[in-house]
């Protein structure tokens, strides 16, 4: 007997199979065990956009194979834009992590909230969608990066940093006449690792690790 299950989709990360090419939003919810179906908002993730799927709305898997859905308990969808593309979401907040992921935004870019005067949305933050008007979110080349210096997070401008600048992040009262600072780095641009000595500069990136050890100058 041939396999009659021809179509699969993802609901909240789980793979669900169906042999119907066209099913309703209600059936998607039911196949995912969301009961009663009307208690849930169903969001379909598409190419750098997302939309709310109504209960009676038809989904054609021939047009959209490998569809991905997210469910939210509630009865309201929230609209916003990411890089000028329309989005809908089932909760009054969306995490920056979800925006990066579902909008396929490079992690080196930063997210900006247009309505709040280009406020940067922290990578571990969230956006509230329940307010007045439609939130407009954009991604842009980050002006700052977060690096680790002796195990502590430090936000620095995105540019080349000198040996002395890195040493000062670890020891704000660094004395370059008296002491020598041994600086090693890991997880740099293109996986760069090594050590940084007086007179050298290095490009920094998010998550780059610097360790600074002080010793006296010989």
């Amino acid at each position: 007997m041939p396999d009659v299950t021809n179509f699969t989709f993802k609901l909240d990360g789980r793979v669900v199979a169906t042999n119907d090419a066209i099913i309703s939003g209600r059936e998607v919810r039911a196949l995912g065990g969301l009961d009663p179906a009307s208690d849930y908002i169903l969001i379909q993730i598409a190419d750098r956009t997302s939309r709310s799927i109504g209960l009676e709305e038809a989904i054609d898997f021939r047009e959209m194979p490998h569809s991905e859905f997210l469910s939210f308990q509630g009865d309201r969808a929230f609209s916003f834009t990411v890089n000028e593309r329309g989005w809908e979401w089932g909760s009054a907040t969306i995490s920056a992590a979800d925006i990066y992921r579902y909008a396929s935004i490079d992690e080196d870019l930063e997210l900006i909230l247009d309505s709040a005067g280009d406020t940067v949305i922290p990578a571990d933050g969230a956006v509230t969608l329940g307010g007045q008007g439609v939130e407009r979110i954009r991604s842009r080349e980050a002006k700052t990066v977060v690096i680790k210096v002796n195990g502590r997070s430090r936000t620095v401008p995105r540019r080349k940093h000198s040996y002395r600048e890195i040493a000062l992040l670890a020891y704000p009262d660094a004395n370059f006449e008296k002491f020598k600072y041994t600086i090693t780095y890991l997880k740099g641009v293109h996986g760069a690792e090594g050590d940084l000595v007086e007179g050298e500069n290095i490009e920094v990136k998010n998550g780059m690790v610097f360790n600074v050890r002080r010793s006296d100058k010989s």
Partner: protein
Amino acid sequence: MARVDCLTTVFVEDIPEQLDDGVLYVSRQCHVALHNCACGCGEEVSTPLVPTEYDLVMEDEGASIWPSIGNHDFPCGSHYIVKRGRIHWAGKMSREQIEAGRAYDRLLKRGAQPKGLRAILAWIKRLWIKFIG
């Protein structure tokens, strides 16, 4: 602040801004361990856990760090070994010993890596300098 004779190891992702005495903070993600100098002087000691710097081995009794902690530039001049969470106080190193250790560090970082018999000889020499001088 008092001198401590052992270090309790705490694994963290981010190292706190202020350290407690007698605690060795280890961040595997950041490849570093930090502690306040065991003599109680309040200076922060950074031991980067990368091949050219320090090695940290965790055992039931506590962490061991190698090579020794030589805070020659701190006013206290402390020198000790951390082994299974305990502080083993070592003598102050002479200027020649400190310089020999640093020359070896520089060789590791920038020079050609010694290979074969030369590497073994360098290692024996380093041990010799550390313990016997």
